């Protein structure tokens, strides 16, 4: 085995026709921009959509590194933390900067840190690299809570972010925060999508599929790896800033712990490696499913068991589902949705008749 990420063939396939992808994206965006602000309750936005958006973006970033470039990382939460604290400090200390600029600078800071912690990738591979990224996880958490400057010398090291404002307009409502977050996530996802289809994106894939072969066709392997770390950390850093500014509105280093890193890794595995929409599907599954399970459990059995027993059962169910998923649907939710989509469009084509051939036939 040359790589720990032997990928299924299908995930490398670009959607058959860009137009189909475009139509789908436009449809999803229309719902996200129009229908959601109109109909979603405050609970849905605050407790589901805001964490979903931030974590989706983090998953997009990690997918770039792990899914496309083949470098397994367990330190995503650390880069989120760097982004969150950097955005806070740029915003605090360079108050004249518009918020989006602070976010970009935060992303760049995270990218810089990402390159430093990506250096071991030049010598290590596979699980050795994965375990070495834990150094980032623990060092960043330690440094952020150790040096008071990062949290503006707040005695407990927990920061409250300022109210969200853009060009003089207050975005400090659930809908405002949601739209702000959605816009950033859309822009960055589009950027990553373009990147994966560029020469750099092809270099990522080449490094993933075999370093020797990549070298043979002239891909500069070390630079490519570090670029993957940089861009991935940039995206994850911005995701961290979103997590802090739009969702929690308070940040402490402890919130960016190893569990969060694993959570993001779960998302790209369940969603599907090396696909952008896989990151979103995986994030939706990981954010929403436990809540559904908890609600269903409390609804059906709440009177009989206390919340602790229900939560433990939920833990078991989620663990078992992850395993089941890995066994039954190794290509992730993205592949599952492709299949469902193909079946639906085949049915649609049959219904409409032979005049319009299915795009997926």
């Amino acid at each position, binding site marked *: 085995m040359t790589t720990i990420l032997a990928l299924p063939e299908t995930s490398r396939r670009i959607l058959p026709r860009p137009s189909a992808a475009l139509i789908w994206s436009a449809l999803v965006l229309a719902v996200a921009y129009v229908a959601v602000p109109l109909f979603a309750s405050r609970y849905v936005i605050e407790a589901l959509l805001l964490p979903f958006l931030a974590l989706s973006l983090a998953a997009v970033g990690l997918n770039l590194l792990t899914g496309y470039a083949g470098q397994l990382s367990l330190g995503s939460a650390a880069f989120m933390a760097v982004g969150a604290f950097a955005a806070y400090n740029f915003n605090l200390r360079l108050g004249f900067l518009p918020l989006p600029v602070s976010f970009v600078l935060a992303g760049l800071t995270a990218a810089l840190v990402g390159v430093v912690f990506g250096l071991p990738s030049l010598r290590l591979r596979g699980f050795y690299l994965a375990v070495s990224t834990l150094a980032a996880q623990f060092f960043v958490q*330690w440094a952020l809570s150790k040096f008071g400057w990062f949290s503006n010398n707040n005695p407990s090291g927990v920061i409250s972010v300022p109210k969200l404002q853009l060009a003089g307009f207050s975005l400090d409502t659930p809908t405002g925060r949601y739209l702000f977050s959605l816009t950033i996530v859309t822009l960055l996802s589009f950027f990553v999508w373009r990147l994966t289809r560029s020469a750099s994106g092809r270099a990522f894939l080449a490094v993933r599929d075999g370093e020797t072969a990549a070298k043979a066709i002239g891909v500069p392997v070390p630079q490519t790896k570090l670029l993957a770390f940089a861009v991935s950390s940039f995206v994850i850093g911005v995701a961290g800033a979103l997590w802090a500014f739009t969702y929690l509105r308070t940040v402490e280093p402890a919130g960016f712990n190893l569990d969060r890193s694993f959570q993001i890794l779960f998302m790209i595995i369940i969603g599907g490696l090396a696909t952008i929409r896989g990151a979103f599907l995986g994030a939706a599954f990981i954010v929403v499913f436990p809540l559904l399970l908890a609600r269903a459990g409390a*609804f059906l059995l709440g009177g009989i068991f206390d*919340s*602790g027993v229900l939560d*433990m059962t939920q833990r078991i169910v989620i663990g078992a589902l992850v395993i089941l998923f890995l066994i039954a649907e190794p290509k992730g939710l993205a592949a599952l949705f492709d299949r469902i989509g193909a079946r639906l469009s085949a049915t649609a084509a049959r219904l409409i008749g032979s005049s319009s051939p299915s795009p997926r036939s």
Partner: protein
Amino acid sequence: MSFFKFTKSASLAALLALSAFPAFADEQHFPLQSYRVGPYASGGTGFFGGFIDYLNLLNDRDGGVNGVKLTWSEGETQYEVERGLEVYERLKSAPGIAAWNPLSVGIAYAMLDRVAEDRTPLITLNHGRTDTTDGRVFPYVFPLLLNPYSESSGIVNYIAERSGGHDKLKDLKIAVLYHGSPYGRETIPIYELLAEKYGFELSQIEVAHPGNEQQAQWQTIRRQRPDFVVLRGWGVMNPVALTTAQRTGFPADKIIGNVWSNSEEDVLPAGEAAKGYTAIVSVSAGTEAPVIQEVTEKVYGAGKGDLADKTRIGSVYHNLGVVNGILNTEALRIAQERFGKRALTGDEVRWGFEHLQLSPERVKELGAEGLFHSINVTWDNHEGEGLVAFQQWDGTKWSRISDWIAPDWALLRPIIEASSEAYAAEQGLKLRTAEDVDKVATD
């Protein structure tokens, strides 16, 4: 199989839309962000168990507070901020919410601006963000009885008392062993201030999270030979501190635990090593207080007790939960005097908390004599001048070994105000004045 899973989640999605809160007019509701699993489950089960036990006692004995029935609902947080927020957003639509009691610093922080917006009190008994003591900046947040600064000052006052007066402090060497987290680091500047004021030699030593390895720290302590070690621990760090102290030959009776290192769960796993260990409390352990007796008799006797393990009745966390119940419901009672004996709005309950003054006599009437001393909350002092005491572990139980001691509030208040004013400036808030207290929203 995959399609089945898909339809199943679709049908479950419908459940999310359900909001299962029946609206009753005369009920006061306590949404509980509890944690019964995860690393801090023993604290959560004890505290929320005690809280629920007291609410049950009032409902069964008195029919609630002046006839207003007390209800509650639980959401599991595992002590995680994100889950705590989800529970907040989920439960906050319930009618008649009295107050939030998350018993988690992280969750409380994330709720600061949310409760201000929703005008509901947030109670952080014995913990929380120190500067929320300043009611001018934080109208809805109440770190009742003891904030982390008062805790530090109380501990130093106790050490002074044990050594024969404050003037003896200048000959002492004190080491503070703290957990490597925002919680642990919060008191670093206070100990420095206290050391400067009283002239004792101070060293502060950090233990990396989670604290299951402390060999190096205790060897450092042994080399420094301090007279006392203050333990600001957390979860597994506490028993490990005690066993490691024993292993490196530091006597347990010279270790003073803080308010998160004072429970049975902190000492039991350490066995022999914990004998003689002393810790600060604002709420005593033990089953002697009449209210605890009554809970045992009437609530557990009727099979309605919340603790699965009855031997935990009267444990530190359980008693803390009971006292939390007393403080919450007394605030309701005080607010009802003014606004009428009915279910109150969150802002009316806030007014009640801002007038929560329970003298030692009133505490005795409530059957809580010996559990806690008294409380004296005002609109600008949301901590309420709680007194502290010290308890010692004899290998099987805690016993109180000191009188109730007052922290040095006057010394701490200026630092608290500096911090809260900085927060107000950062967030663009206007400082409240005494006139604002009686402006009460009735929705």
